[in-house]
């Protein structure tokens, strides 16, 4: 009697492994920022169209995650943080990750074009291309500026959300883009300072490896100082208001203090307290982004009651 056991593969993937291929944690950030971009736009979007648009943006982000896992399987297998991913863990074959990535890329872009508009779909297609090709295939292994330019891929979602609602690009959506774009380097470099073994083991040219840790500390402070005016400037546009501006001033002041504390430390001091400052700044940077976009949302939510906005 023929039996399915004849084809048993211990590493055969379950549905959850394919979901993991889409990097659900990254997806949650994409969903949040794209949703804020869509909701703060001065155009009312039908709930079904808004829901579909965000879903397809999330799917596009997931697709680029799958393409990244296909391309980076060799270095993911070396790093402690990533070796449990479905491809290096042997649950999903690299070719399958490529197929899932390509199929979902096409599906998400076409469906977003049909659900919302083709500008939003074009921006989503460019985001996928930027993350999978420009960042993963080109920059990540060739330059320590990988994080800086690659950060653009994570910065596009609020712009896509805004384009879904308005069909255009404006100063507000560009500032939301700039906020994430400028936030990404200090966020990741703070992580790289206390995850040093992983990146150097994989041969990824992180700034900490190529230019040293002192240079990384300088860069964190420089980018945090450049980020502050961008974040505060957004408060003076149509999506800003007193709530956002207050939050932006306080959060940026706190972030600059954190970056300054990282800058004035040396390795001996950092190792003495197990990178406590670097870890706390990294954690704070997550709240920083969440609270900025939360404040945009608060302004938009209170506007109908005459409270939000200028």
């Amino acid at each position, binding site marked *: 009697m023929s*039996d*399915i*056991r004849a084809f*048993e*593969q211990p590493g*055969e*993937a*379950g*549905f*959850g492994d*394919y979901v993991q291929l889409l990097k659900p944690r990254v997806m949650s950030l994409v969903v949040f920022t794209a949703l804020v971009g869509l909701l703060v736009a001065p155009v009312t979007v*039908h709930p*079904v*169209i808004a829901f*579909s648009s965000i*879903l397809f943006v999330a799917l596009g982000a997931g697709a680029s995650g799958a393409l990244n896992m296909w391309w980076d399987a060799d270095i993911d297998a070396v790093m402690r943080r990533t070796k449990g991913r479905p491809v290096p863990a042997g649950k999903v074959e690299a070719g399958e990750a490529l197929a899932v990535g390509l199929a979902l890329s096409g599906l998400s872009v076409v469906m977003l074009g*049909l*659900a919302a508009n083709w500008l939003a779909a074009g921006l989503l297609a460019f985001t996928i291309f930027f993350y999978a090709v420009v960042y993963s295939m080109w920059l990540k292994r060739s330059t320590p500026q990988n994080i800086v330019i690659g950060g653009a891929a994570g910065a596009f979602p609020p712009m896509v959300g805004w384009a879904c609602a308005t069909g255009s690009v404006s100063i507000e959506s560009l500032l939301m883009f700039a906020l994430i774009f400028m936030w990404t380097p200090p966020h990741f470099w703070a992580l790289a300072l206390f995850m040093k073994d992983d990146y150097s083991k994989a041969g990824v040219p992180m700034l900490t490896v190529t230019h040293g840790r002192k240079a990384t500390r300088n860069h964190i402070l420089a980018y945090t100082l450049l980020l502050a005016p961008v974040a505060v400037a957004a408060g003076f546009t149509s999506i800003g208001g007193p709530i956002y501006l207050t939050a932006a001033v306080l959060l940026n002041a706190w972030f600059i203090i954190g970056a300054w504390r990282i800058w004035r430390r040396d390795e001996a001091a950092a190792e003495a307290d197990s990178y406590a400052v670097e870890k706390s700044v990294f954690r704070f940077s997550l709240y920083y982004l969440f609270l900025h976009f939360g404040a945009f949302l608060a302004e938009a939510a209170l506007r109908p009651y005459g409270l939000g906005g200028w």
Partner: protein
Amino acid sequence: MAAFPPEHELHKRRLGRNVGVGVTLGLFIVLVFALTVVKVTRGDPMQAFDHKVRPEMATEEGQ
């Protein structure tokens, strides 16, 4: 008559995967249907270029 062999963990995983794909496709169909209903009831353009002149689709200059 031989008894059925006990169900292997692999079968459960395959069932989970098949159910997952099925449910996802079902939800996708529901979503496309909902989008269609919304677009039709809002009066979005129902016609597109299909290699034939469609005078009713032409927009007047200045519009």
